[in-house]
């Protein structure tokens, strides 16, 4: 069946009541029965929940074949936890048929590709999938169909019981002996633990893995002891150098700066740019640089930002410290400046992924966003964005909070160069739709700006401000005139992954890659 973004969704995926994507806000007003975990009572007082090894924790939680283990990705490319746990489960306990439900996975988890090929790991549910794991899943080697969700779609699915977590593993920079965990105060700090919070509340069992045991009580705790079964102390939960990068530098590339300036111009031309406005930006070159230009407009107009959310990095923290932002609410930290600021700088708060972006709760932060500035691997003439699959059709990205912020915000701006090498970023049809075009409002490229025809109000704003804009079709033609018209990527029939829209409907499918022959 064809969905609202024109993608053909095979009927067998719709068995059991799954629906195809129908457009934004389709699920609004519907009721959901939340799932509840089956948890163990610890009535008899425990002095400590510390067990010797991950294997012991797995045994204590009744780990067995066919279970679903969950992980968060706050340790990013420095993460050791996923591999440590899966190794213990598969190589020490001999478990098989396991499913990994992670908030994201990356090149740090190449080892899991082996377990997929061996048939030990049979299910993957994640936002990001990259490296060797992306390759083997794209080659059709995972036994079941992978499920890709946005950061808001994931807590929605967990709360609705669409993914039932048997054991949640929380890599924690600090924990006390009973599992009160924080993202700061240790040697592998990651700041916010927002992606782990829903897991801890909805998993049957929760295991905290830390490399820095601190005195009880570790407060304020991101994951609370009341939800934790066991605590394991290991040498290291991750490589700090890869967990939080040194402060991301603002791009000096003139092309990025030009695009960033145009983003700020577009923002300043809208009525939403007023005292107390709200903002989120990605950490890509031009998106990040937009902060710089936005500050100029804020100063000129004598206005301040009310609040900012998202993955947080240095430029946002600096604006907060300068008093130019009222509050920063933080689901994830990208650099040391952000890690060292959360819960330390006044008005820099932590939030859960559900609070951030879940479309099925009673009002996530994204719903109150005025502006979001995002990047894209590809954007097509229907304003549909791909941030997941490469030009060869292989899984190598993550929807992350892209679809959530795009849907929630009043103005969603995509900023991207028109071409990257020989790749046309603006194209006729994206390989995979990760953010539907009805959520994307403005495209800023180095060759011009285009506004989604669904937003005549914004077209008027730009016209009134004298900002030139063109049709997205003309940008596509410009791109093709430089790089040539690309051939369609060829796939086999087999569906290797489902791309779930944030509301749980099916937005697109990813098929097995076909070896290319000339």
């Amino acid at each position, binding site marked *: 069946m064809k969905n609202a973004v024109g993608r053909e969704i095979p009927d067998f995926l719709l068995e059991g009541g799954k629906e195809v994507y129908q457009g934004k806000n389709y699920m609004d007003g519907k009721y959901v029965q939340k799932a509840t975990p089956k948890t163990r009572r610890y009535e008899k007082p425990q002095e400590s929940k510390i067990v010797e090894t991950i294997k012991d924790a797995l045994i204590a939680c009744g780990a067995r074949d066919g279970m679903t283990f969950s992980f968060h990705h706050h340790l990013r490319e420095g993460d050791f936890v996923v591999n440590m746990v899966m190794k213990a489960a598969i190589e020490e306990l001999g478990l098989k048929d396991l499913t990994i439900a992670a908030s994201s996975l990356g090149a740090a988890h190449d080892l899991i590709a082996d377990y997929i090929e061996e048939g030990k790991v049979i299910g993957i549910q994640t936002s990001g999938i990259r490296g060797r794991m992306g390759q083997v899943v794209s080659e059709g080697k995972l036994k079941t169909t992978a499920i890709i969700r946005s950061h808001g779609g994931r807590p929605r699915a967990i709360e609705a019981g669409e993914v039932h977590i048997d054991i949640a593993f929380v890599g924690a920079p600090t924990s006390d002996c009973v599992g009160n965990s924080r993202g700061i105060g240790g040697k592998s700090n990651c700041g916010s633990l927002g992606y782990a919070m829903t897991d801890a509340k909805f998993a049957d069992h929760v295991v905290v893995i830390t490399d820095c045991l601190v005195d009880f009580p570790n407060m304020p705790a991101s994951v609370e002891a009341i939800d934790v079964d066991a605590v394991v102390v290991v040498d290291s939960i991750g490589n700090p150098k890869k967990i939080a990068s040194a402060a991301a530098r603002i791009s000096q590339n003139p092309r990025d700066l030009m695009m960033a300036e145009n983003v700020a111009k577009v923002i300043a031309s809208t009525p939403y740019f007023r005292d107390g406005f709200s903002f989120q930006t990605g950490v890509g070159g031009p998106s990040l640089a937009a902060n710089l230009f936005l500050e100029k407009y804020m100063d000129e107009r004598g206005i301040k930002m009310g609040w900012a959310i998202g993955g947080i990095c240095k430029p946002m923290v600096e604006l907060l410290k300068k008093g130019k932002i009222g509050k920063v609410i933080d689901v994830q930290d990208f650099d040391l400046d952000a890690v060292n600021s959360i819960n330390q700088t006044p008005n820099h708060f932590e939030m859960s992924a559900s609070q951030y972006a879940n479309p099925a709760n009673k009002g996530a932060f994204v719903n109150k966003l005025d502006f979001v500035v995002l990047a894209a691997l590809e954007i097509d003439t229907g304003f549909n964005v791909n941030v997941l699959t490469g*030009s*060869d*059709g292989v899984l190598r990205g993550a929807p992350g909070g892209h679809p959530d912020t795009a849907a929630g915000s009043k103005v969603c701006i995509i900023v991207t160069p028109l071409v990257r*090498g*020989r*790749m046309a970023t603006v194209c006729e049809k994206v390989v995979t739709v990760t953010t539907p075009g009805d959520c994307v409002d403005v495209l800023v490229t180095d060759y011009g700006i285009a506004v989604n025809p669904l937003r005549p109000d914004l077209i008027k704003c730009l016209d009134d401000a004298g900002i030139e804009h063109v049709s997205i079709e003309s940008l596509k033609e410009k791109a093709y005139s*430089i*790089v*040539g018209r*690309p*051939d*369609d*990527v*060829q796939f086999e029939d087999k569906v290797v992954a489902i791309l779930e829209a944030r509301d749980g409907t099916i937005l697109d499918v990813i098929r097995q890659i076909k070896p*290319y022959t*000339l």
Partner: protein
Amino acid sequence: MQIEKNAMAGTLESSDAMVTVEPAETGIELEISSSVMNQYGRQIKATVLETLERLEVTSGKVTVVDKGALDCTLKARVECAVFRSCEKSAAGIPWGGVIK
């Protein structure tokens, strides 16, 4: 033009291509690898063959390692590699017309 000895042009930088030509008895043997194979492999092949034809090269082993080069870059690299293979790159380059 005839490929008389092994020659190379281009780099492995992003948006460039490295083209190697070697003499061969008969026919063109073409090997292409590309970072944009799935979308542009067909066009890369066509561009390289067209350029060789314009240069009137009828035999040789040609290897292209493409890193997302535009057509104009590909043409220039193929042309240069062929010129170098027959000592035409120092003097007597037939500018303006051979490569369109």
